[in-house]
């Protein structure tokens, strides 16, 4: 009988202690909550930026929640995060229109890449235009010579892929050679490797897996064209909708677009892969804004 009372008392004490520490943490540490995409988070760039930021602001904690692009923006619209880092202009425009996102800045860019089997059955290697390339892949697919793996998950990559298909005027959905993996970039690339198929990927994930010798059958076939441009933007969530942390978010955003922040971005990946994974936006903001606008129509 006594044991039971003691145990219950102990549990209550623990609950109280935990609640108090939580409260203490809450009051003392300033926290910025940022939602972002899994692919961007997985590169490690964001934690690196946060690390640098903390050197100047040691008592600010940045929490990253990595989900899909769609989900990241949904979280913003629900007021559950203070900032968003995404790369899906058409979705971003929608949320800007709804006044969920304010004060956005383009922070970096890189290019999606079309990768495919070494022997390139659709013969796209010499092309520079991804739209043309997709057309050829479609044809090769219909003739049974090629497969295409789509992420099918509403991620930034998937949205871009769909946009390119739209520009070709062709719709591969439901066709035998068009496979929707419904999963992340790594798994999608590995599936493409297995099936010796074509796919659209971000440069970071591709380089990483290629470096680890896990994509023996795949090669980078097309990159660098503006239709493949991947523009990363950071937004602050509208503080008037929900009680989000505008001031702290602004501090972090300012850091990311500062010289120091842009330097971190520009150098990121050089050590590991021999080439940077991102190009800093600094100096090219106007150009990028134009492309960004174009991309919202994709």
């Amino acid at each position, binding site marked *: 009988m006594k044991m039971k009372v003691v145990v219950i008392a102990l549990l209550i004490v623990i609950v109280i202690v935990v609640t108090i520490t939580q409260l203490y943490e809450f009051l003392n540490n300033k926290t910025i909550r940022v939602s972002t995409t899994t692919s961007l988070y997985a590169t490690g760039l964001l934690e690196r930026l946060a690390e640098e930021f903390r050197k100047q602001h040691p008592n600010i904690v940045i929490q990253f929640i990595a989900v899909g692009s769609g989900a990241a923006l949904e979280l913003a619209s629900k*007021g559950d995060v203070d900032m968003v880092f995404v790369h899906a202009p058409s979705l971003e425009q929608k949320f800007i229109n709804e006044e969920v996102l304010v004060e956005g800045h383009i922070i970096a860019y890189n290019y999606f890449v079309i990768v495919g089997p070494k022997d390139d059955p659709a013969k796209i290697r010499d092309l520079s235009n991804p739209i043309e390339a997709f057309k050829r892949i479609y044809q090769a697919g219909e003739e049974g010579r090629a497969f295409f793996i789509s992420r099918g998950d509403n991620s930034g990559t998937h949205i871009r892929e769909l946009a390119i298909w739209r520009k070709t005027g062709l719709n591969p959905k439901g066709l035998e050679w068009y496979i929707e993996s419904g999963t992340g970039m790594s798994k999608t690339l*590995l599936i493409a490797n297995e099936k010796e198929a074509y796919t659209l990927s971000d440069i970071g994930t591709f380089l990483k897996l290629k470096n680890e010798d896990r994509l023996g059958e795949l090669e980078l076939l097309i990159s660098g064209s503006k239709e493949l441009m991947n523009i990363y933007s950071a937004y602050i969530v509208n503080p008037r909708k929900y009680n989000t942390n505008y001031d702290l978010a602004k501090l972090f955003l300012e850091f990311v677009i500062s010289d120091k922040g842009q330097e971190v971005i520009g150098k990121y990946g050089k050590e590991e892969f021999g080439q940077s994974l991102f190009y800093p936006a600094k100096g090219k903001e106007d150009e990028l804004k134009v492309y960004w606008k174009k991309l919202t129509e994709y």
Partner: protein
Amino acid sequence: MYNEVYEITLRSLYISSFATALALTWSIPISIKIATMKSDIRDAIISMFNALFALPTVLVGLLLYMLLSRSGPLGSLGLLYTPQAIIIGQAVLITPLLVSLMYEIFIKALSDYWELAMSLGATKGQAYMLIVREVLNDLLSSSLIGFGRAIGELGVALTIGGNIKGYTRVLTTAIALEVEKGEFEVAMILGGLLFVVILSIVLSVRVIRGRFK
């Protein structure tokens, strides 16, 4: 990397044990109540619990997210993306499982031990205590199963915890992230760790039970 693994493991243990303890506080009374019900009502309720148990964890996570989101009814509690949210979420998640396991234990216990206690002059409170004491072993087994489900689930921890590094990242969400990143070996190692952790807990409880058998 290794301190992160250590921290993640501790966090998984802490969160899921609290979740199990929390779930027990309401699951035991619910199970007792169900055990005392008439059989037709009881069957209906049990069927409901069985169905709830089959819900995918992501769905449960989503429902809880809607509750705890700032735009949701309980948003002002500020629980979203905290370890406490995961504790509550997992507790809710494993409740149907616990109830399904425990009510049968209580049906038997209530018929045998309640009568026994009363027949020897116990108060209602003493009768309940006796029942709990006698079924403790079986309850412990059920709790372990509940704990296993809590510590091994992904959907709830991910959706309402956010997998935030250093704060709400647990073994399962860390594994999911590594798989996303294509780091399959790391994921397998973490998975193996998860298994070892659960195994150790199950074994130690057996040892403790052995002492009191």
